[in-house]
């Protein structure tokens, strides 16, 4: 695959929830190593956009290609593609009946068919990296929200994904735990991971994003580098949105 080709391409994507047109002709491409932060008011379709990339939300029309291949229909090929796209959810979604370590090794062992000892070693290294190696044998419910979300990031990274999707990863966290999760995400971004991040953390968007994408009412309204977007937004919708969130 040519290095210059974008990793994720959405072309004229449309999606309806019943009568609600949640994605309207959305086109977006994400380069390898690029960090794209998607912001916008709630209900603007940004989560749906993020979830459409690994087909957790099927779309009604348009095309999505990942690494040069169109998203396959439900089945083994789709499972294989998903294993290459890490996903981090707002509500963590750690497997409640498995320990933190088992959460991280499940995918490598069952999907990648790695030897348990190999998977375990890498899982411990990842848990160490996100700062919760000492919690490896606990169950998710025994951890704080911030620790759970860091474990969820380790679980996604254990698959050695080509890209990571973050669907409002800090929205369910207590304020004092937001920083520890954003730190992990920032270090990932620095290392060159391709990331699509749906978030309300404007600080993260400013310092870690290569590009900010602003969505409203199912449309991709504006995209620009963070300095440009936050400094001089072009659309009225973006100006309005920013004036509401940046004044306090």
């Amino acid at each position, binding site marked *: 695959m040519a290095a210059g080709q974008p990793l994720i391409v959405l072309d004229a994507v449309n999606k309806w929830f019943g009568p609600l047109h949640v994605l309207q002709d959305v086109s977006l491409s994400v380069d390898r190593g690029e960090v794209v932060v998607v912001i916008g008011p709630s209900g603007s379709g940004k989560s749906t956009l993020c979830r459409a990339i*690994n087909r*957790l939300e099927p779309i009604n029309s348009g095309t999505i290609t990942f690494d040069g291949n169109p998203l396959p229909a*439900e089945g*083994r090929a789709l*499972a*294989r*593609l*998903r*294993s*290459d*796209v*890490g*996903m981090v*959810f707002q*509500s963590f*979604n*750690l*497997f*409640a*009946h498995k320990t933190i370590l088992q959460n991280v090794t*499940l*995918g490598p062992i*069952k*999907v990648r068919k790695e030897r348990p000892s190999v998977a375990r070693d890498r899982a411990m290294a990842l848990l160490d990296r996100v700062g919760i190696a000492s919690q490896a044998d606990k169950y998710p419910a025994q951890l704080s929200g911030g620790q759970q979300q860091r474990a*969820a990031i380790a*679980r*996604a990274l254990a*698959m050695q994904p080509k890209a990571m999707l973050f669907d409002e990863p800090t929205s369910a966290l207590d304020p004092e735990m937001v920083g520890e999760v954003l730190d992990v995400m920032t270090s990932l971004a620095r290392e060159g991971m391709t990331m699509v991040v749906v978030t309300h953390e404007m600080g993260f968007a400013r310092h870690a994003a290569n590009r900010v994408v602003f969505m409203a009412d199912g449309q991709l309204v504006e995209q620009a580098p963070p300095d440009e977007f936050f400094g001089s937004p072009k659309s009225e919708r973006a100006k309005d949105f920013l004036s509401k969130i940046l004044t306090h």
Partner: protein
Amino acid sequence: MRVLVDHFDVFAGGLWLTFQLCLLSAIGALLLGTVAAVMRISPIPPMRWVGAAYVTVFRNCPLTIVFFFAAFGLPALGSNGDFLRIPGLTTIFSRLGVDIPYFRFAIIALSVYTGAFVCEAIRSGINAVPAGQAEAARAIGLTFTQNLRFVVLPQAWKAAIVPLGSVIIAMIKNSALAGFFGLVGELSNSGVNLTSALGEPIIPVFIGVSIGFLIMTVPLGLLIDHVERRRAVAR
């Protein structure tokens, strides 16, 4: 009440056969019910239809009718339930291998009937597992079957254990019907024999039969209470 002492061997033998019938039927019902539950949530519509049809038929038919079809319908179709003569199992459960098929028919009737209820108990357990669990499993690339096996079903089982216990207790009591459909020597049939063939007094005999059933159902009920309490603490 002397009959309980005089014919202790009859009661003990009846209890043992009923226990075997219930153990094998419970295994059969749990297997059938799990398969049916998986079919009912399958992404393939025809699988869902088959699962739903199975539950609709067997949850809504009286057990007596199911036993009737097992005992008279299967032979008419030329089946003696021989597929249940599983090598190894027939050495532990000798009735499974004998030529008279009524033990096997009783297992089939009880399993198929109870399986429909097991299916719904497991499905309610599956619904109790938050949708995010299955989503996270799909997101790391697990297939539908792997998702069920490693993520959804282990959690669904825990949520379903109390309703499943009630289903199995009901099945144990339902097994009393087997004696009226050709199965000689299980608990209720032993009671009938003692009264009709040997002229023993009815009430003491059936007190004995009741005690036999209680010996199986009460400990099972206590076990489920215990599991439920442990689950409540763990939450």
